């Protein structure tokens, strides 16, 4: 027999090892949205089911693949087809072998089915015994950002607490998230905390998840929702009980007003980079990635070198440029509901729906040329019949190419200062 299994197996093992190299050393499974680096019971249950499927299919694969490889190599003939060479046995099959294999396949599937069924019920809703302890929030998808609503946190005269693009939840407690959408289908996905559930129009979906420990988690819309679907991202920040309470208390306050002072510092703001960026140029920095939670925490407190004059200018511009029609800044002029609530914008670690790190340079870029950051965004294109940065022709309901709002660098600098003062 020409075929000997030992070198074949050795070669197969080497190939597998080579294939495994990039996975283990290249960090192919350890990113901020890794489904393996689970941080909560829902994601963990889903991963456990995945491992069961992997083991069962791997075992079946090794058996079938070995037989297939063996048969191919053992029964292979070299040389051309010779019609006169002796013909192999023209057997048509063996019913016992076939029925046995069907039985074995069903058996293998039962191994997967049992944990699957258990996990379907577990991951669907908060377990009954923990329901009383669960915290409820609503996540709403819009083209292309997320709004988070806290029905348990009512503010006198303003309804529930509303934030955008960063969901802050209590750690160590189940969180039940109602999923809603105001336009098309979106999907809420925080891989480290749990699998996705879609936000369907005319349908009240929900999911639950729980973060074991305080932490900073990456999330992303997982259902194609139009032009800028790729950059519809968000973050989840899990806080310990005390920190969460403190955060809520601050968020429920109206927007912060910086009182003018006589000897205010000047020009501290000028240090940031205002040069126009290339389309799609990244909005993250290594320092932020190293300690996102630290960066988020630092943003909860007012900056040291605030310039009250510039902030006041920015606040006036925010009104003058018509930002207030769509953005709510509770306690200030902003009253809109079509766009993210900016009451405590300065305390968020990202902007433009988790796309850019919330620093002055990025915010400047977002205000000056939003369409270059997130193509098709409603701030630029207009929303619900209202014009954005571009004019909308009333007859055709289409943009006519003329600018409706333009923000120059000086104006943007003041607006950046104002928005960053909203801690």
């Amino acid at each position: 027999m020409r075929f000997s299994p030992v070198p074949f197996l050795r070669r197969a093992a080497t190939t597998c090892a080579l294939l495994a190299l990039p996975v283990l050393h290249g960090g192919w499974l350890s990113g901020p949205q890794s489904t393996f680096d689970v941080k909560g019971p829902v994601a963990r249950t889903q991963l456990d089911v995945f491992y069961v499927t992997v083991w069962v299919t791997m075992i079946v694969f090794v058996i079938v693949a070995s037989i297939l490889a063996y048969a191919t190599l053992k029964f292979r003939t070299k040389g051309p087809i010779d019609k006169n060479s002796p013909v192999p046995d023209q057997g048509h099959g063996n019913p016992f072998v076939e029925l046995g294999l069907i039985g074995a396949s069903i058996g293998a599937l039962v191994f997967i089915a049992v944990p699957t069924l258990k996990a379907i019920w577990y991951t669907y809703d908060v377990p009954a015994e923990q329901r009383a302890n669960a915290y409820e929030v609503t996540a709403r998808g819009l083209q292309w950002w997320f709004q988070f609503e806290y029905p348990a946190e009512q503010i006198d005269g303003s309804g529930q607490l509303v934030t955008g693009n960063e969901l802050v939840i209590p750690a160590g407690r189940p969180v039940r998230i109602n999923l809603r959408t105001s336009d098309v289908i979106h999907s809420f996905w925080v891989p480290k905390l749990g699998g996705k559930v879609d936000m369907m129009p005319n349908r009240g979906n929900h999911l639950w998840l729980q973060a074991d420990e305080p932490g900073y988690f990456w999330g992303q819309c997982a259902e194609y929702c139009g032009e800028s679907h790729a950059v519809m991202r968000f973050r989840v920040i899990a806080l310990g009980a005390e920190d969460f309470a403190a955060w809520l208390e601050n968020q429920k306050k109206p927007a912060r007003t910086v009182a003018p002072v006589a000897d205010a510092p000047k020009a501290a703001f000028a240090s940031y980079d205002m040069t126009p960026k290339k389309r799609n140029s990244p909005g993250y920095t290594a320092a932020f990635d190293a300690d996102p939670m630290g960066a988020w925490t630092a943003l909860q407190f007012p900056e040291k070198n605030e310039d009250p004059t510039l902030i006041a200018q920015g606040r006036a511009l925010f009104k003058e440029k018509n930002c207030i029609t769509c953005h709510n800044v509770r306690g200030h002029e902003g009253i809109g509901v079509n766009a993210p609530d900016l009451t405590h914008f300065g305390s968020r670690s990202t902007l433009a729906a988790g796309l850019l790190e919330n620093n002055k340079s990025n915010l400047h870029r977002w205000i000056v040329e939003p369409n270059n950051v997130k193509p098709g965004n409603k701030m630029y294109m207009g929303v619900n019949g209202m014009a954005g940065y571009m004019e909308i022709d009333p007859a055709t309901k289409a943009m006519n190419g003329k600018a409706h709002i333009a923000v120059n660098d000086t104006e943007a600098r003041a607006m950046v200062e104002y928005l960053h003062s909203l801690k």
Partner: protein
Amino acid sequence: MATATLKSAHYTAPQAVKPATRPWFFTRPAAKTGLVSWLTTVDHKKIGLLYAVTALFFFLVGGVEALMIRVQLAVPNNTFISHQLYNELFTMHATTMIFLAVMPLSAAFFNYMMPLQIGARDVAFPRLNGFAFWVFLVGAIVLNVGWFTRAGAPDVGWFGYAPLTSVAYSSQFAGDSSTDLWIMGLQILGVSSVIGSLNFIVTIINMRAPGLTMMRLPVFTWMTLFTAFLIILSFPAITIALVELMMDRSFGTGFFEVARGGMPILWQHLFWIFGHPEVYILILPAMGIISEILPTFSRKPLFGYPIVVFSGAVIGFLGFGVWSHHMFTTGLGTMATAAFSLATMAIAVPTGVKIFNWVGTLWGGQISTRTPMMFALGFIWMFMMGGFSGVMHSAAPADAQQQDSYFVVAHFHYVLIGGSIFALLAGIHFWFPLVFGRIVSEFWGKLSFWVIFMGFNVTFFPMHFLGLNGMPRRTAVYDGNMGWNSANLTATIGAFILAIGIGTYFTVMVYTYLKGKKATGDVWDARTLEWSVPTTPPPEHNFHITPVVHARDAYWYEKTHAKEIAAEKAKNAQAEESHGGIHMPSQSWFPIITATGMLIGGLFFAHHHFLGAIAGGCVMLLGIIGWAFEGPGGYHLHIAKDGTVTGGEGQDAH
């Protein structure tokens, strides 16, 4: 001439209807070569080639779209193309590959091979067969015409989830008709598929050669039959959905329109009750091709034929009961999720059965690893991997993490490239000598196989890890800090290797067609009837004498019982001639005229010019009327003892 002496009661004299008495527009075209012969053809083999060439063209178009996607994703935050163009590309890549490449390429094999495999002279409705092709071409044009307009190609995803397809969310500007073109194109393609499928079903049920009982059918013909049934049962669902959507967009109904109380989830149910069987529409023909190639190159009958056929039926049947596994994340609730999860696992059993039986076919055989066999073996390996990742997301909780991630992209490309495309490439290689009388060089064939095999795995294997590492699908850009960079770059490099492999494959095919080594007859020592044709390429009437089938691998039986068959054939030749010779269908202009009406009407309707749409409808109606009144036509051919063919259109009409 033989006709003069051999007349029977069944034979109507040629004088019954004189061709000259027919009005000019009912004159049947008689050209056998040149452009007119192709435009008016009713020959299943010519139609098969038309399907094949069109499908391969769109396969290359879809491939270029895929390469542009991979270039954009090669590095994080790339600016190679815009988000909008990216969205158009992934929409059209999927739509093109599914509806304009794999399905018509399967249809090409159905058309060309199935009648030969059942010993028939043509399909049951030859003009309808031509019509199916022209309608397919019309659908392909309507789908792609957007590339040349201001709106660009459709950008709603091949799945077109409502309400993103509504006027409010799918228009970049007023009068953006890209989505209307997508809706219209798919409806027209549905017409083509249903017509073609009905034709195949009637052909297989009614036109089998004597002795060819159902349980003697070649497995490829079985899979043609199952696929055809899947198409006629599943396409109505998407047609309803598309018509409802068209009404929403054109006339302001509220099926899916949220503001009018529509239910977007309804679209998903209708779409996937079509969309899941569609997956089997893409893979069953491939399984049929593999079930022909493996026995041939193992010189052994298919292991467990009845169970392979039955599992094909079970796959087709279960395929209608698993659609909601595409919707595990839409909030179906526990019970429905559990039911669809279990049903999806169940479908792994008949699929596994097929793999076991293919391995059983190899066992104890005389395996000759020629190029078609290499592709077939590659198919089994890759399809197995795609099948196993399929089992992984049949478990709904695991799928909650995988759905709409690159893990799914990896999975279905293993099934659709590693599965369908490998099998179709194997089929092209396998039947090339039969269709063109030339054989592809082994060296270049094997080289293209290995490059394709390697490129494919380098492209799609890393995508499993991308998905599990949280990368969602349909995203034009990604950040460089997500751990996705090296896997994406690897995939892009792989895509170019794959492209080189595909390029080599088709260059070799074109070269072989023009200058390849001549090969006649049964080059592979094959087992089924298509190889028993008198010449390669086969004559228009396929068989001089209708074969009589005595066993499952009919041609293998003929070869092993040569004497007995020769005597039988001589007897049948006489009988056939005494019935007036070989009855052949006449060519016709009306299929292409009717299809042209659909093109005009479809394009006008998609742009909401309803008068133009009515004009197109009139052309179509005119075509149908002409079709009805030109009569069935037909003529006779006569085969002399030495094999010379006489007779033809206009010479011997009745």
